[in-house]
């Protein structure tokens, strides 16, 4: 609105006359075209926290390689564990990297992408303009959820893929040594790895759902992400209370490490089946709650 741009500013004064007043919306508008996935992906991708999260996941394998290079090969303490065989080869190293990050790092990454997505829009006040664009509420949530889950999947995949690269560079390519003894040839091991990663994704589903629900409920991105991580921590603490007995089976994080059952001479499906069942059941309810809440909520941010 500077005077120098005077000639242009009168442009709105000469628009074509409004079209048929009885039509519902402008001809180019269609609910199905609102908030395309590509647009939402771009909106999220250029964010600093997205880039930092991926940066950490990409660097962590190299940090671990450095740690093993400095500290030498790990020595066992009698109890079979993945750390004892971490440097046996790229695949073993990848499994170790997954093992150390499943409990917290991946949880934070998934909570970040799913917990931040709606709450941050509310925080920036951009949510109300999107809704008035109008992007119907259910569609906004759906598109945001798809993009957030895609980023989460990418994050969960980034770590093992980069670990494979780092592990190959540092320790070479070798058969997988199982912590309980025995080896699995590379061909089988890649299949097992796919199971491991697939299950990790399913297990993180409940974290994603929890974070997403909190994201819809609160206007503070930090609250949503922190709340989801906090509840995971509480669940882990309860899981440590052995007095709870089999009630712990129904804690959302109880089966988080069940992918290790794929690393035994014979794959044990029971734990993963239970974990997947719990995760999917919780996630379905939490996602539904998120949609319901967002549908009825007054947007006052």
């Amino acid at each position, binding site marked *: 609105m500077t005077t120098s741009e005077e000639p242009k500013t009168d442009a709105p004064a000469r628009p074509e006359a409004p079209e048929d007043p009885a039509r519902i919306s402008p001809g180019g508008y269609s609910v199905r075209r609102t908030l395309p996935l590509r647009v939402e992906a771009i909106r999220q991708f250029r964010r600093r926290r997205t880039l930092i999260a991926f940066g950490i996941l990409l660097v962590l394998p190299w940090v671990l390689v450095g740690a093993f290079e400095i500290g030498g090969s790990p020595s066992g303490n009698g109890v079979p564990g993945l750390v004892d065989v971490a440097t046996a080869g790229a695949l073993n190293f990848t499994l170790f990297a997954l093992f150390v990050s499943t409990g917290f790092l991946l949880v934070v990454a998934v909570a970040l992408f799913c917990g931040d997505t709606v709450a941050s829009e509310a925080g920036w006040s951009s949510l109300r303009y999107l809704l008035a664009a109008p992007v119907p509420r259910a569609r906004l949530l759906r598109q945001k959820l798809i993009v957030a889950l895609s980023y989460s999947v990418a994050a969960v995949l980034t770590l093992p893929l980069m670990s494979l690269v780092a592990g190959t560079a540092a320790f070479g390519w070798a058969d997988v040594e199982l912590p309980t003894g025995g080896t699995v040839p590379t061909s089988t091991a890649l299949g097992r790895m796919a199971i491991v990663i697939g299950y990790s994704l399913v297990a993180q589903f409940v974290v994603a759902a929890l974070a997403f629900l909190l994201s819809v409920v609160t206007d503070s991105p930090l609250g949503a992400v922190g709340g989801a991580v906090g509840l995971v921590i509480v669940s882990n603490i309860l899981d440590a209370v052995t007095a709870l007995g089999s009630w712990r089976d129904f804690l959302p994080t109880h089966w988080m490490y069940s992918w290790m059952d794929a690393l035994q001479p014979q794959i044990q499906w*029971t734990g993963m089946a239970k974990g997947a069942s719990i995760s999917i059941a919780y996630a379905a309810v939490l996602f539904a709650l998120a949609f319901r809440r967002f549908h009825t909520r007054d947007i006052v941010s």
Partner: protein
Amino acid sequence: MRVGGAIRARWGRTGRTARWAAAGSAVALAAGTAVWGASAGGPSRVHTVDQRIQVVDGPHDDQRVTLDTTFYKPVGHAKAPAVMLGHGFGGDKHGVAAEARALARDGYAVLTWTARGFGASTGQIALDSPDYEVKDVRQLIDWLAKRPEVQLDGPGDPRLGMAGESYGGAIALLTAAYDRRVDAIAPQITWNSLPDVLFPNAAGAGPENGVFKKLWAGVFFTSGSRGAGCGRFLPSLCAMYQKVAERGAPTADAIATLRRSSPASVADRITVPTLLVQGQSDSLFPLDQADANARAIARNGAPVSVVWYQGGHDGGDPETGRVRGLVRDFFDARLRHAGTFGTRFTVTRAGGLDSSTQKVVVQEAKARTYPGLSGDPRQLALPGAEQTIHNPAGGAPAAVSALPGLGALGSLDSLGAAGGGLPTDMPGQTATFDTRPLDHSLHLTGAATVRLHVAADGDAGDGGPLFAKLYDVSPDGTAALARRIAAPFRATGGEVTVTLPAMDHRFDRGHRLRLAIATTDMGFATPPQPAAYRVRAVSGLTVPTDPSLVTAPAPIPTWVWILPPAGLAVAAALLLGVRRGRPRERGTGVPLEITGLTKAYGNGHLAVADLSFRVEKGQVLGLLGPNGAGKTTTLRMLMGLIHPDAGEIRIFGHRVTPGAPVLARLGSFVEGPGFLPHLSGRDNLDLYWRATGRPAAEAHMDEALAIAGLGTALDRAVRTYSQGMRQRLAIAQAMLGLPDLLVLDEPTNGLDPPQIREMREVLVRYAAAGRTVIVSSHLLAEVEQTCTHAVVMAGGRRVAAGPVADIVGSGRRLEDAFLEIIGEGTTA
């Protein structure tokens, strides 16, 4: 035998049944199903009768003994088959109370009794002798036949099954041989031949040439005598044991006595269906004892099923739930003819660790036939030269294979070489022969055999004991005993065929089998004289397998399948009504019509009350009112962000609901800008427009950018913008697509005077083109100069509406009129 039980208890963990039961009830609760209600009455009560029963026994039937018994009445049946449960050595009837109750609940009449010489029963221990214990039990059967609850096959002949562990299992076998009234037996971890158990010889030379299993024999005897001399043993038995233990070798008399207490002596008379449950962690009564019983009974034509489970006298997973379930199913099939019991061979295998419990997962492998201990043999070469091994003077230090309780410690062994690592063999005392690394994994099921050439160096070692064991050697060289059991034999000079301990063990690909021949073993009597032996493998290792064993996948609890559909059902229920179709409406030309709009917030504050007004095309409407008048709430409802409590808003005749398509004809700027701070102004507008899904051509982006007038700042991140720059960008965003109805909330906040003036002109021109503009403001002068019409709000209500000129009246300033109206509004 009872000792084994005690040790198991010490190393024990929660039974699997208990865990599953708990998990099951958790599901029942979580799912809120009727299961909980059905069992709300708690476990049904079992009525018991404690009774001392007088019996007469002895070789001449002249010894009176009182037996302490408990009778468990069947639940839910007036007459039911009977089951007699025997107890382990050193225990009494209370040890089997839990199992008895469970069987009674399943509808069996159960009799438990304390054998003579134990607990509250009188008499002395005769080691399941046909002259004593067997006679006692036959009189208990007489007693059972008189109970009204017991189903009879004939006069004085109850429908009867017998079960029990160890000492109680042997009496089941022996009674079945001596009494035709027994209809089915399920002996567990018990013996076939006591002499072969206590003086084993793996070269088949008989107990006369056996090696004294001194540690177990001692544990066994002491638990019966309670450590006090002969305790309650029959004096003749006590004397026999003392003589044998002193010599470290059997006497003919002892072998004869023990043989009479062995099912082996009467196996040709056992003709009833039999379930033999034997432990894989059992160095006292190894699997070959069950095998001998199975072969003998099967020879008589009776159906025999064999179960190898993880437990045993050495410890290991007791698998209580699984074993009890098998015994119950067996009795159901044999005593009730309910269901079939077609599985002839069941082996439980450690299938790995459960990562959530850190416990070993046990799987069942089943087959329709029992192959014995030498089924489907494979030959593995045992390269290696002759080796010389030494028996140290005094026999110490001795190698450790099995010790009571070590089975539990070594349970990780079953998962692979890395799990174990307890020192077992002493250097210089052991000859080892390794196979080549396996190309494929090999599952040994049975007893491997090997032919050895053994020669003693000098006379001292002639006939000296040697111990054969089987190791699993991983590729990195770690060796662990496949099973912690040693097979003793004697160096008689020349070639011998040694049968290694029976077991079920998987040797992985790349692993080697190692045959170890040792001169000492802590569990056995070995000579104190130093000696040396030369050992050579003459044949390869013959490894039996049973490919017909099929491992059923570990059971997955029902809740795993129920929970996801239940979750989805709950989700669907939650989403019911969320998607609602919109009624098709005919549009009108009225840009905005608000009728009876009311909104109260959660705290009870009435933000908008019964607001109605109408805006016509081409108007620039000023929405006036002091702070808190409800202007912003109204505009938020206009955008579909807030649900009104009552009343409605129509834009061009279409009712506004969240996300209503008609909102695409509305451009809005309400309560400040909302941008993604990390993106530039241009990207923000661009992505916003793409988010509306409308074609880029409809955006009129250049006109909007001209209104924003941000110049080069347009390509900087929005977070660097000043308040005024954001404000202008937000107004530009509202004008994207040149909406028919433009709503601006305090548009001049943060603008400098020239910009304010310019904004005013933009709005006037915008409306002049036939569009409609609503400006909310508290700057009265601003409204006076820009707007054609005004709506004045106070306390959520409309207090005045109409053309600005009408509201102002002649010769007054809007400010005066406004204050006057407000005053009225608040007092009204």
